[in-house]
């Protein structure tokens, strides 16, 4: 999962169109839409007590590729894969974990298939505003990241050019371990966190 910067002098939507047009010229087929979203929960003040713990942030994410699942994760911590009832549990836990609704962020866009690759070009939005572009590329036949990284990189260069990312840190230490959907969600969480911290794209005509 990588962030593609907005093209010089263009809007988020125009840059997304440039990317999708390149993919279509390569011969990729549109295959529906996708959505990955992320909600932020923080430990309620009442539960901190005398222990002096700093509040923790927990992310609860959903991915349309896995419609029956829910992913819950902590930054630099474990990622739990659960079924959709986890969302109901979070409602029961609202005395302990508060949903920072304003922080909800999502990447939404079109799914493309090109031979054995699956590409998703998403507009990242927080509330009503478009904050950036997230591109997810998957090489479907392979489950060990190290074995296909070079191939992935070569494919990405054909439509992302100089914006092709380096190997994601989630594959850093565990070169030969088997890929899991949690690896994708961690990358989205890191990308969303980065986008949240970025300055909002200035709007022309601010008085």
């Amino acid at each position: 999962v990588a962030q593609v910067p907005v093209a010089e002098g263009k809007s988020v939507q125009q840059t997304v169109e440039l990317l999708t047009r390149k993919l279509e010229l390569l011969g990729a087929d549109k295959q529906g839409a996708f959505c990955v979203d992320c909600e932020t929960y923080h430990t309620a003040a009442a539960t901190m007590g005398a222990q002096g713990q700093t509040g923790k942030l927990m992310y609860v994410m959903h991915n349309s590729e896995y419609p029956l699942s829910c992913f819950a994760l902590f930054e630099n911590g474990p990622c739990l894969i659960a079924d959709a009832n986890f969302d109901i549990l979070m409602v029961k836990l609202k005395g302990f974990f508060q949903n920072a609704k304003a922080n909800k962020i999502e990447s939404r866009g079109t799914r493309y298939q090109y031979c054995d690759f699956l590409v998703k070009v998403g507009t990242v939005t927080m509330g009503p505003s478009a904050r950036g572009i997230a591109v997810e590329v998957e090489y479907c036949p392979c489950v060990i990241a190290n074995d296909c990284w070079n191939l992935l990189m070569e494919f990405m260069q054909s439509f992302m050019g100089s914006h092709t990312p380096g190997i994601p840190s989630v594959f850093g230490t565990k070169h030969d371990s088997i890929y899991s959907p949690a690896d994708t969600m961690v990358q989205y969480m890191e990308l969303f966190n980065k986008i949240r911290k970025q300055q909002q794209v200035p709007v022309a005509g601010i008085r």
Partner: protein
Amino acid sequence: GQQASPFVLRARRALDKGGLPWHLRYLGQPEIGDKSRHALVRNCVDIATSDNLTDFLVEMGFRMDHEFVAKGHVFRKGIMKIVVYKIFRILMPGNTDSIEPLSLSYLVELNVVAPAGQDVVSDDMRNFAEQLKPLVHLEKIDPKRLM
């Protein structure tokens, strides 16, 4: 500040079959109007999870209260589930190979998971429980007495 009663979650996994998801369950307080019913009724949320559940719960701020191994048999009659099992104490935390029985007796538990509002289910449970007498006397439990 102190919470009135701690939030309890139950994490369970199969020891006899590998590769199955862990099971997380939340059971709410007994519902109001419960006294007239023949069975204990509680709100229930069941969640299947990946096998890093206990690490994740600790990260959320939960701490383990107790753990045990249960071995026995599961029977079904329609939506009713009857479990006949022995409880084993775990001698070293997290090590399920070193266990000893808590008692020589088996525990018999009759439970049903049903959509909200289907109170008539408790009548079916009472009727079934009657059939197990005098071999087993199934009683409605009071969770407050056990805490």
